[in-house]
Every structure is written in structure tokens, then in C-alpha cells.
């Protein structure tokens, strides 16, 4: 069944969408889209390390992204620089270092475009295992930290005062972010992972009035984006990542009309 590259890509993409849906909502709520970008950029370094040491890519990306997140926390505590400057610093320098390392690895042929924008041809059966098992684990952990993470997203002090340990939830969430980037990098590419996280969630925000609804719509939006994106990628021979993101954008634009309609109804 998984012999066909397109079926593999579809199964992989749908697996990713199930996880980016809920995580993306938190990225939007907690204003972490630039943070997601930074982790994704650092993934390139993870990939090059994986190639040069002949190591599993997802695992290597996961380790490097977590490390970058840790460095970010340290820098925030030790410098007076604003958060966005530190994120920019880490994002671009890790991307640059990754590209420099690629330059040194002349003995390996890199598909840089595939890394940046995703490559459906590259998805193997092993990748499917990583995506579905890894994704299930991410969702399970998210379910476990849900209460503390959600409460502290609404208000940190309430969560802390009433004993929900928001700092621990935040730290675990950061690790989950590194994990989703690690498992989805082949599908969407490192420049577009944040798009997969925030665009379906942003679409869902337009049509939801409760957090649970927003998460469900965000998952549905992601699944539809993957299906529409991959089929058009096959049809028009376009790269998979950008096609999925363009489909997500298309859904977002439709959700804007939904808002206009409700405003008209109110009047």
C-alpha cells in the first residue's frame, strides 16, 4: 500500500497535520511564531550533522532544535537584548552555520531545495513510522500538560498561584515544538514549517468561539491543506511544502469571508 510515493506523502502529511493542528493553536495563542521559525532554521544544522555522522535525521534535528531552545533561554536570562533580537540572532546564525557546514561536506550531495521547501519524493516508510509514532507521543504529552499549559497561556499568575506549575508545562511544550519540527521537516521543509503551524490555526481562530473548537478546526484545516496541496503538487508538478502552505492560505482566505458574513448578520 505504501509502495506509491504519493500515498506515502499523503499518509505522512496527514500525520503531521494531526499534530500541527493543536500545537499551532498554542503557537498562535502564545505568540511563538518567530520562536517556531528559529527552531525550524536551526533544523538545517541538525540535518547536516545527521548526514555527516550518518545519524537519524529526525533525532538529530530534535536534539539540535532542543539545544537551540535551551541556548535561547540562557541568553534571555543573561543578556538585556529583547527576545525578538535573540530569536533573529539564533535563527539566522544557525541557518548560516548549517549552510556553511553543507559547503564543507562536498562528498555528500545535498538537495538544499528539498530541505528548505520539502520533498514528497523523499518520504520513506521509515519516515511514516517516525511521523505517526512520534506524532502520537507528542499529542499524548500535550494532553498530559494541557491543563497547566492552557491555564498559563490564559494567565501565568493564575496558573502559578493555583498550583499548576506553568514553568514545567512551558519547558515541555518547547521540547514538543522541537519534536514536531523534527518529524515534519521532510514534508514541509524547514522554511515553511511555521506556516503549517500557524496558518491552519489562524484560519481556525476566525471561525471558533472556544479553544476546543479552534483546535478541531485547526486540525481539519491542516488535513485539508495537506490533501489539496499534495494533489495539486502532483497535478502541477510543484514542490510539496509550498503547495500545502498555499492550500492552507487558500482556506484562511475563505475563513475571512465567514467573518464578514457573521458581521453582516449582526447588523
Amino acid at each position, binding site marked *: 500500500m505504501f509502495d506509491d510515493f504519493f500515498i506515502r506523502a499523503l499518509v505522512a502529511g496527514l500525520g503531521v497535520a494531526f499534530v500541527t493542528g493543536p500545537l499551532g493553536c498554542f503557537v*498562535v*495563542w502564545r*505568540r511563538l511564531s518567530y520562536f517556531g521559525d528559529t527552531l525550524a532554521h536551526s533544523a538545517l544544522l541538525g540535518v547536516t550533522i545527521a548526514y555527516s555522522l550518518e545519524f537519524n535525521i529526525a533525532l538529530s534535528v530534535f536534539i539540535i532544535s532542543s539545544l537551540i531552545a535551551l541556548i535561547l533561554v540562557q541568553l534571555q536570562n543573561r543578556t538585556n537584548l529583547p527576545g525578538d533580537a535573540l530569536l533573529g540572532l539564533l535563527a539566522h546564525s544557525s541557518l548560516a552555520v548549517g549552510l556553511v557546514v553543507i559547503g564543507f561536506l562536498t562528498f555528500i550531495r545535498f538537495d538544499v531545495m528539498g530541505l528548505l521547501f520539502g520533498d514528497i519524493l523523499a518520504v520513506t516508510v521509515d519516515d511514516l513510522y517516525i511521523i505517526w509514532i512520534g506524532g502520537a507521543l507528542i499529542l499524548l504529552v500535550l494532553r498530559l500538560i494541557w*491543563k497547566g499549559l*492552557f*491555564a498559563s*497561556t*490564559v*494567565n501565568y*499568575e*493564575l*496558573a*502559578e*498561584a*493555583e*498550583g*499548576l506549575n506553568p514553568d514545567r508545562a512551558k519547558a515541555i511544550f518547547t521540547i514538543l515544538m522541537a519534536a514536531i519540527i523534527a518529524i515534519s521537516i521532510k514534508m514541509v521543509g524547514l522554511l515553511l514549517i511555521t506556516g503549517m503551524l500557524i496558518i491552519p490555526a489562524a484560519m481556525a*481562530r476566525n471561525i*471558533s*468561539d*472556544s*479553544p476546543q*473548537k*479552534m483546535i478541531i478546526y485547526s486540525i481539519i484545516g491542516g488535513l485539508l491543506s495537506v490533501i489539496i496541496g499534495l494533489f495539486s503538487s502532483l497535478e502541477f508538478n510543484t514542490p510539496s511544502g509550498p503547495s500545502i502552505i498555499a492550500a492552507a492560505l487558500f482556506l484562511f482566505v475563505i475563513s475571512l469571508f465567514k467573518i464578514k458574513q457573521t458581521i453582516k448578520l449582526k447588523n
Partner: protein
Amino acid sequence: MSLNNNILVKLNDVGFQHNGKWLVQGVSLTVKKGQIVTLIGPNGSGKSTTAKIALGILKKIHGEVEKYTNKVGYVPQKISVDWTLPLRVYDFMVLTENLDEKTIDEALSLTGVIHLKDKSLGNLSGGEFQRVLLARAISKKPELLVLDEPVQGVDFTGEIALYELIKKISDELNCGILLISHDLHTVMSATDHVVCLNGHVCCSGTPIDVAKNSEYKALFGEQASQILTRYEHKHDHVHTIEGEIKKN
């Protein structure tokens, strides 16, 4: 240890420094079951900071906090909820603890906002939001309630009714309440113990003791002192949330 049985939280000579400046220091106080302890003091006197120390929100404090309960309800003074989050009053009520519908409805009815249950939190007025905050804090039947200016923005009749409610909750749940207010009129009738802050504890005791204290008079003026002493009289009626008057 039997003496400690009723103590919910005890601050021993605590203080907090921010950017080299003491926000508050040398505060000792105890909140016991069934007791209402009120913090009063001018703006910037460290009332909210003291509450946050007691709650464990502020880390790196001086002194020590002994806490004997985990069941805490908190109404913060300022709450900035990010409206990128679609949140109804109902979602907010179950934020830190899962509650059944009946408990939620009861709490929202007590503070007079049951009709807002399915409304979006972002569309509430200041006073309505304050009532929801209070409902949320009491709904989980906490042992310790920390209320930081709980009736700000609430209309005058509602304010009195909410203070009556707070008193009632303290009796019914037998919980301890740490209350912050600068409204001397309404608070004093219910308060067991007053701590007057001005960066440090300037005086403390029963409302009457504090009112007679010279430091208190210097801080708030002679008039405020009269307000407190006048509050020795007993009410012969109560105001309901809707503003009706009922004879006792």
C-alpha cells in the same frame, strides 16, 4: 504542631526586591481558616506584591513562606488575557480545575453573572469580568482565597453585595481570605485582622486597633480613622446582588 492546624499560610519577615529597589519588606502575617485578613495601604505600598509572595508567584523572595494548603483561589488585581484566544466564560471557569456544570452555575449565580456563561470573555464589561473572576475563584471551593481588589469596576450596590458574599463564603467554606482593598468603608465590617502596609507593615490588628493607630492616621488622614471607628455599628439589612434591600 496542633497550634498550626488552622494556619493556611504564614509569611515570616518576607520581602521582595526588584531592580535593586525594595517593593516590600519585613512583612509577617498569618491567615487562618475562617479568617479574613485585609491588606490596606496607599498605591505602591506593596499590597499586591505581598499577595504574590503568599501565593508563590514571586520567586527569589527574602524571608520564608509556610503554606499549608494547595487549594487556592486567586483573583488578581490586573489580568491581561490575550484575546487571540477564543475563550468563553465557561472555558474560563474550568481553567485550573475541572468542575461540573452545577458547581459552575452555582458560583456564577452567586456573583450574579449566570446569564453570561456562554458569552465570550473579551466582550464583558470591567464589572462583569470582575464578577466572573470572583466566581471562578470561589467555584473550586478553595481553602485559601486571595482577592486583590476583587470588586474594582463593580457598581456601588453590587460592591456591597459582593463584600457580603465574600463574608458569607468565608463562613460557609470556612476558608481563609487574604483580601486587598483600598475601600475602607465596606471592607471593615467583615475583616478580622487588618495589616496596614506602606512598603513595610506600619501597623496591624483589629480594624478598631488600626484605626486608632497614629501611623495609620498619618498615612490615611483623620477622616479615614473615623470611617473605621464608625463601622462598629451593626447593619440591620443586607443588599442583594441585584441591589434589593433585605431586613436581617
